[in-house]
């Protein structure tokens, strides 16, 4: 086919804009500095930055301990969890071709909830030793069960979605039964369900960053191809994609990130829906090429939400899930309404 070159041809523009990614990374940095500085005791911004980068004349004594051992791991954990939830949400929305899909869709939430309830009811005292492990295993097992009962691997996104709902209800039923039998577990389970970052310490940051960063890197690697999953399987096959393989990789990585996030922080809702839609709204792209931007934006969103949770009713602390839901629920309705109008 002859190619006519026309210098005045309108540029179609790159589909991924590095500037927006760079800006979102800067926003994350600013929000993180804000997050470690503000609290019941305010720390000086410049001294915080000096301390973080190892320059002289930084914070000393108790303030230094407060920054490095309490606030920094907490802000880092919030950022990791936010990045995990927003990227997994974006990926799930693509895989299931459903703008309202969230990272907990395939039963991860109720599986993790059941795991956490088991940990709390069976451990007596040392709740926080077992809880992350139990909820991680519970979340992963629930997603595997969803795959198993949906029959063929990814025969059809819709059948997987329905299996996810069934597994989710089943897990929640057992969880409710256990709570009934152990009423003393109600309060810790409830506060875990609302999400909390109070267990943050360097050890938690270390293991969760290992899983979450690897999962996000995998997702960013395959993200260019993910757009192909928005087409029918026959179309994406003809464009050089193996849709089943790609879906399995994407869902496995997204589930690893989600289960880790849930294990580290409980069930923090709406991040996986709000942030991807916000980023898509700003970049005007449905595509997943902005996945890195979504990771930074999700991280910044949750750091900010956690800041609100710590400071709004200071010295008391609000569950972070309350904050994200307070912003997220109206947004959810907005997306629903816009989708209805759009269609």
């Amino acid at each position, binding site marked *: 086919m002859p190619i*006519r070159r026309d210098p005045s041809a*309108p540029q*179609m523009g*790159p589909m991924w804009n590095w500037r927006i990614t760079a800006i979102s990374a800067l926003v994350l940095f600013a929000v993180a500095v804000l997050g470690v500085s503000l609290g019941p005791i305010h720390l000086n911004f410049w001294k915080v930055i000096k301390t973080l980068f190892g320059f002289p004349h930084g914070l000393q004594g108790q303030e230094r301990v407060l920054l490095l051992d309490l606030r920094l791991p907490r802000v880092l954990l919030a950022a990791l969890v936010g990045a995990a939830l927003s990227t997994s949400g974006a990926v799930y929305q693509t895989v299931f071709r459903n703008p309202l899909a969230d990272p907990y869709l395939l039963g991860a939430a109720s599986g993790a909830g059941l795991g956490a309830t088991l940990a709390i009811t069976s451990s007596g005292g040392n709740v926080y030793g077992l809880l992350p492990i139990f909820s991680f295993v519970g979340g992963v097992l629930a997603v595997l069960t969803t795959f198993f009962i949906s029959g063929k691997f990814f025969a059809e996104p819709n059948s997987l979605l329905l299996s996810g709902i069934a597994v989710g209800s089943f897990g929640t039923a057992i969880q409710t039964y256990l709570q009934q039998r152990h009423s003393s577990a109600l309060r810790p389970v409830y506060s875990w369900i609302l999400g909390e970052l109070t267990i943050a310490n360097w050890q938690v940051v270390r293991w969760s960053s290992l899983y979450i960063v690897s999962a996000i890197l995998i997702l960013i690697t395959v993200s260019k191809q993910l*757009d192909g999953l*928005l087409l*029918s399987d026959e179309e994406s096959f*003809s464009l*050089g994609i193996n849709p089943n393989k790609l879906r399995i990789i994407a869902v496995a990585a997204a589930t690893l990130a989600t289960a880790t996030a849930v294990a580290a922080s409980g069930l923090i809702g709406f991040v996986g829906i709000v942030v991807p839609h916000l980023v898509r709204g700003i970049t005007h792209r449905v595509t997943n090429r902005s996945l890195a931007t979504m990771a930074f934006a999700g991280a910044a969103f949750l750091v900010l939400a956690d800041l609100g949770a710590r400071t709004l009713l200071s010295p008391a602390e609000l569950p972070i899930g309350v904050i994200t839901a307070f912003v997220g629920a109206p947004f959810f309705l907005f997306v629903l309404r816009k989708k209805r109008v759009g269609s």
Partner: protein
Amino acid sequence: MISIKDLTVRIGEKVILDHIDLNIPKNSWTCLVGPNGAGKTTLLKALLGVTPYSGSLRDDNAEVYRNQKRNVAFVPQQPQIPAGMTVSEYVMMGRSKRDGWGNESVRSRSLVQNILEQTQLFGLHNQYITRLSGGEMQRALIARALAQEPKLILLDEPTSALDLHHQISTLNNIELLKDVGVTIISTMHDITLAAMYAERIVVMHEGKILLDGLAQSVIHSPELKMAFDNRINVYTLDSGRPVIVAAKDYLN
């Protein structure tokens, strides 16, 4: 040359394609016709390489199942329409296999621009794909297939959602592919249109091939009527062009 030998496709217990033998020459337009459930779409999907089969289905002497080394464009009857993607991004996806996903070569950009002009989509290139009318969407699908620069294009009912004017303009766009050496295989319910564009017509019925030959001879054959249980009438216009319509009196 595509050569099909003893091709059988089963879905569960049901036999969808039943021991089919067929040769399809290169650089031709072959149209599969037959009533609903004859197996036309299944044959297209088998030709694409996504449907498991027994027997042999070879394109340039290579089995096609799961073979992604070939360059085959597929235009589905009911596409998944991604929300939030513009027409030019959608058409640009046709270049993904050549450029690598997420990359756009300079050549691809100018090629896509030419294709958008050729398919009368240029003014719409920044429009969201979800906002397109049925006719425009069909053109966008064809444009994406053209962008693939395929050797073989498979079209499932490319005109079913279109008005008469757009049926012709879409088929004209597809016909251009023959000039650049592309083999075209389509299904079509409108046999009159099929006879206007395709050189060869394959008549299918209940998973079998009843007849395969040049369009003009197939149109007037008893096998064509048989495939539709004699529910069609074939007329010839003064110009010599055949017209096939459903037999109204049959129902009475």
